[in-house]
């Protein structure tokens, strides 16, 4: 399970359509990429799906595993198995890595904490007692956030710009975790404007100015990437629905 359906989703802020009439079915257990230039509405779409308070006043419907979740709060959606990895993870003054991961862990065990840290390439003995604060680098915080998602064992994870602020080694580690999540049946939705990240996906969706303008194979979308998004200007007509 982990099937997500967006039906005619529209978000208006200040009289402007930030997201406009988007319909997508995300097949369970696959890796999907939502791509597009800055300001296309990619991160907003992820935050709408997660149910962030500023993005709850929407038109349309969101279904998860066939059930409507549009009216649910963040934690209720998380309890159903949806989670979000932020582009810039939050810092938690005084909260240890152990406490942070235990809070997320489904089984609340130390073993899960250790395992999750190892999966993101961090030695538990070196990190568990450190605080999730500015003493960690951006890349370390990104990995620790990913570890918290591993510990949670979600059905669907939204990852907003998973490669931002991390070095090559960390990126490769993040990619391997993404595929591990897929192996375990988790649906992964990558929010990105990086061709490298896009290549990790099974399916891709192109957003432009809040509209879905293209769905298709990763290979096809990489070609559009190489055109530095000029295609967005040409694709005036959004596809009514993308079903993969």
């Amino acid at each position, binding site marked *: 399970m982990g099937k997500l359906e967006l039906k005619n989703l529209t978000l208006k802020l200040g009289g402007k359509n930030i997201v406009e009439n988007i319909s997508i079915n995300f097949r369970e257990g696959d890796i999907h990429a939502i791509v597009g230039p800055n300001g296309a509405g990619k991160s907003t779409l992820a935050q709408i799906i997660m149910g962030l308070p500023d993005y709850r006043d929407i038109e349309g419907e969101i279904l998860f595993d066939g059930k409507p979740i549009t009216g649910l*709060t963040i934690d209720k959606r*998380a309890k159903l198995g949806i989670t979000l990895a932020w582009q810039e993870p939050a810092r938690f*003054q005084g*909260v240890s890595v152990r*406490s942070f991961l235990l*809070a*997320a862990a489904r089984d609340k065990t130390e073993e899960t904490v250790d395992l999750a840290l190892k999966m993101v390439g961090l030695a538990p003995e070196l990190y568990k007692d450190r605080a999730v604060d500015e003493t960690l680098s951006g890349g370390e915080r990104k990995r620790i956030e990913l570890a918290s998602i591993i510990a*949670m064992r979600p059905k669907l994870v939204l990852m907003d710009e998973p490669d931002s602020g991390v070095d090559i080694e960390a990126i490769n580690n993040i990619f391997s975790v993404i595929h591990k999540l897929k192996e375990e049946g988790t649906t992964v939705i990558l929010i990105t404007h990086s061709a490298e990240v896009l290549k990790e996906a099974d399916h891709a969706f192109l957003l432009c100015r809040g509209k879905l303008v293209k769905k298709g194979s990763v290979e096809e979308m990489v070609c559009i990437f190489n055109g530095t998004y000029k295609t967005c200007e040409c694709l005036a007509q959004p596809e009514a629905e993308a079903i993969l």
Partner: protein
Amino acid sequence: MNDRKLIDELLASISIHKHYPEGTAHVEIHGNRVIGVCLVDGLTVDSIEMKEGIGVTLRVAKGVKIKNPVHLCFGMIPETGVQRIEMKTVIEDDASVGFIAHCTFPNARKIDHIMQADITIGNNAWYSYMERHIHGDFGGIRVIPKAKVTLLEHARFVTEFELLKGRVGEIDIDYETVCGAHSVMEMKSRISGRGDDRIKIREAAVLKGEYSKGLLASNIALKDHASAEIYNDLRAEGAYAHGHVDCNEIVLGNAVAKAVPIVQVSNPKAHVTHEAAIGSVDSKQLQTLMSRGLCEEEAVDLILQGMLSQKN
């Protein structure tokens, strides 16, 4: 209740069940009576019962370095009463000692805990005083600690006031420190208030000597209708004196927080900085934890625990 039973009850309330580690000095004061004392070489404790309270003099002899922290347990088991302690502490030159003061009032309904301390830390001496309060859930307690601290040259003083368990009731802290040349002072407080708790903290320090250093830090979390007023007053007078004031307060519900920093520099070679943050829980922290399945209350608790556990 005999003294042995009182000691047992006091210690049980702070989760120290009867025995301190071997070679650890400790003093227990219930109400206005010393009911238990165990000393180590170089540490003396004299007490005198007064008309309204008790006078206690703690002295660490010159050059003595006490390895294990000395445990002080102040408290009252009954629901009502007054504990008034006048404490004189002298840490002589080159001595070093750490105190852990447990202040426990587990059944408090109407208790006043009043402490008037006069502390002198000798040349090149080191003194730490960690004060941990354990209160009941009723909040019927007034805690009024006042201290005047003098640091001589190259002395070091670290104190931390912590009240995280149980209700604060009413608290009025007033600490003043004067720092000699090359001395180092840190005064920190970590308090969690709820209900109609009232918190007032005044921490003042004068960095009088050259190269003296000072830190005043407060982390306060408030819920319900609790209120807090924090006055941090740091003045640098000595050449190359360096000080910092840091005040963090999180307010939830109908709580009210006020921070009044006073920083003053009267020597062109001195330097003092100040940071203060008052506000609600950071929304991104909250949303991150909620997106891992914590309900809002659980997420707020974890964030507050983190903020209050910061060591600055």
